[in-house]
C-alpha cells in the first residue's frame, strides 16, 4: 500500500462521501487508486469550482468538504476558494499534489510553494514529508477544520510521498480505523471558555435603555438557534443579523429588525446607530456592518460573544466579552439575566422600532416590467421551506439577502467576507449534496466567472436550479458609478451571450423569461424539474438597490433612496 492509499482510506475513515477534484500530473497516483475506494469523484471544470463546491457542501452541512487539485496551476486555481472559506470560517480540507520531493525548491515544472501562497488564508497547512504521517495529518486536518473557529486546512503532498510504500503496521491501523494520536499541543480548545465578564455584561444589559442584538455566522456555526431563542425570549431585545446570520432567528418574530449593514434594512441600521448597548453574538464587527468603527462605538456599551478571543476589540472597543462556543456562553448569559432583567424596561424602544419597521418597508415590486426584485419575490414564494439558496456578489445578492430572511440557518449561502463573484454556481453544486432543493442565483456578470461548471452539473446530474438575473450590467458597480461617479459607466455594460442557448449547449434544459407571467410560469417548471435546470430572466437594466450606506459613512447616514436619509433618534 502506498501514500495514495493511506490518503484515500483515511479520507474514507473521516466519512468523506465525495470529493470535488480535477486531475493532473502531480496527483495521478491518487487518481489511479481512487476507483478502489468508496469516495465519489466530482470532476469540476475548474479548480476554483472544486474549492467553492467543497465549501458549499461544508456551509450547507457543517461537515468538512474536500477538494483536490494538482500542483502549480491546479493549486493556484484553488486559492480564491480557500480564501473565501477562510474569510467566512468554513471548514474545508484542500489537498494538492506537488512535484517529486527531490525536485522541491528547484522551480520544477508546475512547482509552486502553495503552502507559502496560502499562508495568510488557511487555519493551518501541512507539507507532507512521509507517507506514514498521512493518517495522523488527515485526522488532525479534519479536527482543525471543524473545531473551534472553523476554517480551511491545506495538505500539500509531493508525488513521491503519494507513491511511497506505507509501513505495514501503519496501514493496519488505517484499515482498522484506529485513532492516530494528534500532535497538536498548541491547540487546546478547553482553555477558550471565559465567562469572567458575565456579571459586567449582565449589568450593562440590565441598565440599557436601547439595546440591540446583532447575530452572526457564529450562531449558525455553533448551531445555537435554540439558545438564542431563549435569550431573546428572556430579554426581549430587538434583533438584527449579518449576512451570515440569516436564518438564525425567525424573521417574522416581533423582535426581528431584518439584516444590518451597508444594504441592511432602514430599521436595523437606525436601531444600531441609536442603540446604547450592542450585544454582538458570533459576529466580527466587520466594516460592512459598522460603517465607521469610531462612530459605531460612540455612546454605546458593546458586549461581544465569540469563540475567537482575537476578535475581542479587534475592530471596535468592547466593554464585556464572553469567550467560547455560543451555545455554551449564551445560555449562561440568559441564566444570569433571567434573575435581573425587567422586560418592560425597553418597551418604549421596541415600540419605536415597530413604528419604523412599518414606516420603512423594503421596496416592493411596483414595476410593469420585470425587475430583479420581482423575480426574487416570486422565487421566495415558491421555494421549499428547507431550500438552499446560493447567491453571487452584487445587487441581486443584497436584494435576496433582504428578501429571503425566512430561510433556515445554513440555507442562505453567500461569499460574505471575500465577496467573490463566481461563488453561487459552484457552491450550489456542492450544497446540492446536502439533499435539499437548491437554487443558484447569479447576475449576468458573476455567472460567467464559473459558467464552465454547467458541464459538471450535467455530467453528474446535480440538481441545481440556476437563476440568471440579466440586467446587462455589472449592476452593483454600475450603481456606484451612477451615484458617485456621475453615471460614468466604464466597463460595466455587459455584452452577454444568450444564456438560454449556452445552457442548452451544455445540455441543461433552459428557459428565458422577459415578463412577469413568463417568470412565474418558468419558476414553477424549474421547481418541478428534477435535474439541473436554468432560466435567464431578462430584467430592468438600471434598477437601484436601497437602503444603502454610502462607503465611508456611518449607519445613521443610511439612504432610503438617492436623496432621503433615515431619521435621527
Amino acid at each position: 500500500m502506498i501514500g495514495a492509499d493511506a490518503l484515500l482510506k483515511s479520507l474514507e475513515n473521516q466519512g468523506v462521501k465525495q470529493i470535488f477534484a480535477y486531475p493532473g500530473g502531480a496527483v495521478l497516483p491518487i487518481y489511479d487508486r481512487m476507483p478502489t475506494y468508496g469516495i465519489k469523484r466530482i470532476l469540476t471544470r475548474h479548480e476554483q469550482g472544486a474549492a467553492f463546491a467543497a465549501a458549499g457542501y461544508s456551509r450547507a452541512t457543517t461537515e468538512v468538504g474536500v477538494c483536490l487539485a494538482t500542483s502549480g496551476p491546479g493549486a493556484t486555481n484553488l486559492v480564491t476558494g480557500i480564501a473565501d472559506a477562510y474569510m467566512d470560517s468554513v471548514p474545508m480540507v484542500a489537498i494538492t499534489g506537488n512535484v517529486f520531493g527531490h525536485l522541491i525548491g528547484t522551480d520544477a515544472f508546475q512547482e509552486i510553494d502553495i503552502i507559502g501562497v496560502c499562508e495568510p488564508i488557511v487555519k493551518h497547512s501541512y507539507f507532507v514529508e512521509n507517507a506514514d504521517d498521512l493518517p495522523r495529518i488527515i485526522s488532525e486536518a479534519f479536527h482543525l477544520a471543524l473545531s473551534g473557529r472553523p476554517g480551511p486546512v491545506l495538505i500539500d503532498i509531493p508525488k513521491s510521498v503519494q507513491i511511497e510504500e506505507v509501513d505495514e503496521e501503519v496501514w493496519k491501523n488505517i484499515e482498522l480505523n484506529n485513532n492516530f494520536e494528534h500532535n497538536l499541543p498548541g491547540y487546546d480548545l478547553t482553555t477558550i471558555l471565559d465567562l469572567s465578564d458575565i456579571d459586567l455584561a449582565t449589568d450593562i444589559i440590565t441598565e440599557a435603555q436601547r439595546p440591540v442584538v446583532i447575530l452572526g455566522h457564529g450562531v449558525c456555526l455553533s448551531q445555537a438557534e435554540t439558545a438564542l431563542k431563549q435569550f431573546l425570549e428572556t430579554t426581549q431585545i430587538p434583533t438584527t443579523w449579518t449576512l451570515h446570520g440569516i436564518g438564525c432567528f425567525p424573521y417574522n418574530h416581533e423582535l426581528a429588525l431584518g439584516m444590518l449593514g451597508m444594504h441592511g434594512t432602514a430599521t436595523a441600521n437606525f436601531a444600531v446607530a441609536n442603540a446604547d448597548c450592542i450585544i454582538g453574538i458570533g459576529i466580527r464587527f466587520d466594516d460592512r456592518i459598522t460603517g465607521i468603527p469610531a462612530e459605531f462605538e460612540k455612546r454605546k456599551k458593546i458586549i461581544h460573544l465569540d469563540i475567537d478571543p482575537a476578535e475581542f476589540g479587534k475592530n471596535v472597543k468592547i466593554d464585556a466579552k464572553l469567550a467560547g462556543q455560543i451555545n455554551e456562553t449564551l445560555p449562561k448569559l440568559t441564566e444570569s439575566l433571567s434573575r435581573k432583567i425587567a422586560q418592560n424596561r425597553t418597551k418604549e424602544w421596541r415600540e419605536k422600532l415597530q413604528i419604523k419597521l412599518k414606516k420603512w418597508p423594503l421596496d416592493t415590486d411596483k414595476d410593469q416590467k420585470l425587475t430583479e426584485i420581482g423575480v426574487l419575490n416570486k422565487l421566495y414564494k415558491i421555494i421549499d421551506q428547507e431550500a438552499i439558496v446560493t447567491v453571487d456578489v452584487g445587487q441581486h445578492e443584497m436584494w435576496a439577502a433582504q428578501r429571503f430572511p425566512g430561510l433556515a440557518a445554513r440555507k442562505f449561502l453567500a461569499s460574505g467576507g471575500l465577496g467573490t463573484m463566481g461563488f453561487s454556481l459552484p457552491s450550489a453544486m456542492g450544497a446540492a449534496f446536502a439533499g435539499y432543493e437548491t437554487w443558484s442565483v447569479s447576475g449576468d456578470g458573476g455567472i460567467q466567472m464559473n459558467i464552465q461548471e454547467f458541464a459538471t452539473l450535467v455530467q453528474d446530474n446535480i440538481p441545481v436550479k440556476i437563476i440568471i438575473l440579466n440586467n446587462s450590467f455589472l449592476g452593483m458597480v454600475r450603481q456606484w458609478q451612477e451615484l458617485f461617479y456621475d453615471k460614468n459607466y466604464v466597463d460595466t455594460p455587459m455584452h452577454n451571450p444568450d444564456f438560454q442557448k449556452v445552457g442548452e449547449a451544455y445540455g441543461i434544459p433552459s428557459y428565458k423569461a422577459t415578463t412577469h407571467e413568463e417568470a412565474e410560469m418558468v419558476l414553477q417548471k424549474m421547481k418541478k424539474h428534477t435535474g439541473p435546470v436554468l432560466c435567464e430572466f431578462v430584467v430592468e437594466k438600471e434598477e437601484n438597490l436601497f437602503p444603502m450606506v454610502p462607503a465611508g459613512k456611518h449607519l445613521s447616514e443610511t439612504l432610503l433612496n438617492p436623496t432621503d436619509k433615515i431619521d435621527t433618534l
Partner: protein
Amino acid sequence: MKQILSVVVQNNAGILSRVASLLRRKCFNIDSLTVGRTSDNTISRMTIVILGDRKEAEKVALQLDKLIEIQSVEIMAPETAITREIAIARLGIHTNAEEKKCLKEVDKIFHTEIYRNEEEVCVELIDTAQGLDHFLDKMKKSDIEVREWIRSGIIAIKKPKN
C-alpha cells in the same frame, strides 16, 4: 514603548515563516525577533519585541495564539523578566595614542575582546538592550573607529521567584 513576548512554538519547519507572515499582515511593528532551541527539543522559543503599548502586545498575543503550532504566548513585564542581547563590534586599530588608550579602556571595563589582528579588534558585549545602547553610544563618542556593529535581538526568560 517596547513590549516583549515570549512565545513557545512547536519545532516544525515553516513556523518562523508563519509567525513573520502574521506579524506583517496585521501590520505589527517588530523591533526584534529571535528564535532558538530550548532544553526541550520538541519546542523552540521565540522572543519577539514589538513597538507599541500593552494593548498592542495583547492584540499580537491573541493573534499569535491562533497559529496552531504556537503553544503559549506570554507578554513579559520588564520586572519579571531577565533579558539579554549580544552585540559584536569591529573596531579599527590605529597608532593614534588617544585611541589606543580608549581601546585599552574598553577592554579593561568590559573584558570583551574576541578577535584581533594587526588592523582590527572585535569586541562583544552581552547585556540588556539598554546596557548595549549605552556601550555603543559610549564607543561612538570616543576616539575609537567603530567600523561595524551588529546586535542579536533580545532573548528573555522569566525571573525565578524569590
